């Protein structure tokens, strides 16, 4: 069992992936803080931080630009940080607009794209654009080279596949290969494709009731000068994701469903030949195995100590419930570790309080950055 610090040794990018509701944003922030504490200059790219967390980092106006967390805040909350912690909130639409501005050969083409209805839909609504832009921003920051480490909190996707496929799908759409062939008003294409195409277009127009094709034609025309630039860039982004300096961490919860999704996601990462680093399992109920012998006569022992048989019974019943959850978690995590053939499964316990400030993040870091022995000890102490 390794710690996050060991897994991220020598890495310049850490991508936290997983399904929604498993604590990805908190984990990303905690990782960034932990690495900054060790002396690195770290930037966390987040999607939608809890307001109280953003507030506690002094980042009320978190925007599409990286901002540094005031070192005075670390001191105030009793957290020692040798490096620098920066944070930014991803704005997919703004990033897409910036990208267009950069790729467009001139102002006129830029405005034609920005004002196109299809573009506006894609940049804000099309499934995948948020994922694509997260990668894009990551690439941009990495190229600028201002940070030792970038931590990316990925957008919540319906399933893991979306996240890995979205950039490809979006690029393919922008390339519009299959469509551009048909759109030449005259010439070879129209003849080759023939009647079928015009009928298909006619029917489609009849069904959707508006001339989508005109908008699309305008869109691809506007994009025509940028397609090569986009393709080249997409290739470089893909290369960066597969680079040994990049590390994917899968974040999940200990229940059956999140575990299944983590297994599935890991398989997709391996298939895509992307560098997998480890799993972080949040909200784990730690078992107290070594205490099992004593549990039998616990109600009696507690009644003795508390002088209240009824309370003792409830305390014992509550403990039994927690132990049952702990056993489930342990079973699920064993299953996860064997499916992933990894020893790098980092368990973060179910803390007594929700995490929404630096002190909370630093409490999580005790587990993320602890050695195996330290973790066992802490777990036993908490039980």
């Amino acid at each position, binding site marked *: 069992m390794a710690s996050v610090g060991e897994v991220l040794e020598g890495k310049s990018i850490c991508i936290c992936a997983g*399904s*929604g*509701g*498993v604590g990805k944003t908190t984990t990303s922030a905690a990782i960034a803080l932990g690495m900054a504490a060790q002396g690195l200059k770290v930037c966390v790219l987040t999607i939608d931080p*809890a*307001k109280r967390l953003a507030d506690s980092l002094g980042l009320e106006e978190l925007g599409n630009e990286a901002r540094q967390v005031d070192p005075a805040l670390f001191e105030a909350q009793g957290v020692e940080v040798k490096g620098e912690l920066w944070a930014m909130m991803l704005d997919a639409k703004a990033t897409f607009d910036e990208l267009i501005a950069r790729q467009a050969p001139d102002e006129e083409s830029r405005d034609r794209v920005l004002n196109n209805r299809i573009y506006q*839909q*894609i940049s804000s*609504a*099309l499934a995948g654009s948020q994922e694509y832009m997260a990668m894009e921003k990551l690439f941009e920051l990495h190229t600028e080279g201002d940070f030792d480490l970038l931590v990316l909190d990925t957008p*919540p996707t*319906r*399933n893991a596949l979306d996240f890995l496929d979205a950039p490809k799908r979006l690029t393919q*759409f922008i390339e519009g290969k*299959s*469509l551009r062939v*048909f759109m030449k008003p005259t010439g070879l294409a129209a003849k080759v*494709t023939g009647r*079928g*195409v015009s*009928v*298909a*277009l006619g*029917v*489609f127009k*009849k*069904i959707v*009731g*508006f001339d989508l*094709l005109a908008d*699309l034609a305008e869109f691809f025309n506007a994009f025509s000068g940028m397609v090569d630039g986009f393709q080249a860039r997409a290739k470089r982004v893909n290369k960066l994701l597969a680079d040994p300096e990049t590390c994917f961490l899968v974040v999940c919860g200990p*229940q*059956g*469903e*999140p575990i299944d999704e983590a297994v599935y996601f890991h398989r997709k990462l391996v298939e895509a030949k992307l560098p997998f680093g480890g799993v972080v399992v949040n909200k784990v109920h730690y078992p*107290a195995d070594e*205490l099992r012998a*004593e*549990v039998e006569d*616990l109600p009696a*022992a*507690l009644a003795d*100590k*508390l002088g*209240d048989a009824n*309370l003792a019974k*409830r*305390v*014992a019943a*509550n*403990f039994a419930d*927690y132990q*049952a*959850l702990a*056993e489930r978690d342990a*079973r699920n995590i064993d299953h996860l570790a064997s499916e992933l053939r990894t020893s790098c499964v980092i368990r973060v316990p179910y803390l*007594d309080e*929700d995490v*929404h400030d630096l002190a909370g993040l630093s409490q999580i870091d005790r587990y993320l950055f602890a050695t195996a022995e330290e973790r066992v000890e802490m777990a036993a102490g908490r*039980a």
Partner: protein
Amino acid sequence: MRGYSYGSRLFLPASEIARNQPIPNLLDKRLVIVTGKGGVGKTTVAVALGLRAAAEGKRTIVCEVSSQENTSRMFDHTSVGFHEVEMEENLWSISIDPDESMREYVLLQLKVRAMRDMLFRSRIFNYLAAATPGLKELVTIGKIWELAQLDRKVKQGRKYDLVIVDAPATGHGVGFLQTPRTFASIARVGPIHSQAQTLDRFITDHENTGTAIVALPEEMPVNESMMLEKELRDEVGVAVDRVYLNGLYPERFKKEEAEKLSQLVETENGAAKAAARAALSEYGRAKSQRTQLNRLKRGVEAPVKTLPFLFEPELDVEAARTLAGRLS
């Protein structure tokens, strides 16, 4: 009565409609959309509602739109796909795939077989269908509407009393439900314009369609639920009938007892210490959850119902059955 004109119809502002309506029994509606942030237990609640309705004798179908087969898995059933499959007496399940919905829609629209075949083989048709923003969501909602019709469009379609939708997670959720209106305004003429309008009317019909928001007793999910209710009411115009606060811990210990237990943690070792710690942890959680529950009650207009945290290893169909008993 205030109102504004939209085309030929008179629309009341959605928020106004919501406030003027009495709250009918959720399960007496024809369509119930279960929505909320990822990981809050939407599927469990959707299935619990389904079990409850089925037990009341209502022919009910639970629709999934994420292709994850969470519902069939809960019943230990093989994947159902785009088929209406019976899980239990009066309870069916379907996984609505947008491509299949599109296909079915076109089949219903085009009567000439040769034309349909040609269309499905056509690369450009598939490309356009994939490229049109919102079309997938639209045909998915179209299928939900079709399932809720007493006069089913598909051949020998079963009649349901109630359709329950396990909606996509928030973020996707509101946009998803707004698709018909967006489409109706983009496509000004043609069959899809009137169909999109029909779908929008169906979703915003407070008598027959309702939503239930699922939340967890934690800060972020509570914030998001408050925001979600506002968006659903004011932007989509759909009725919000219930907010289910899922996973509420029991209040097992009183304050004086917690103090007693704190002393035990200090003085004891071994199992007694561990058990006292666990009890204190539960006490703290239960307390902070009550704070969140009160925030939620103050922050939303719909009635809030709590669902207990289940100390069970897996949330299977039996867990959903337990919750079904606590829904009313």
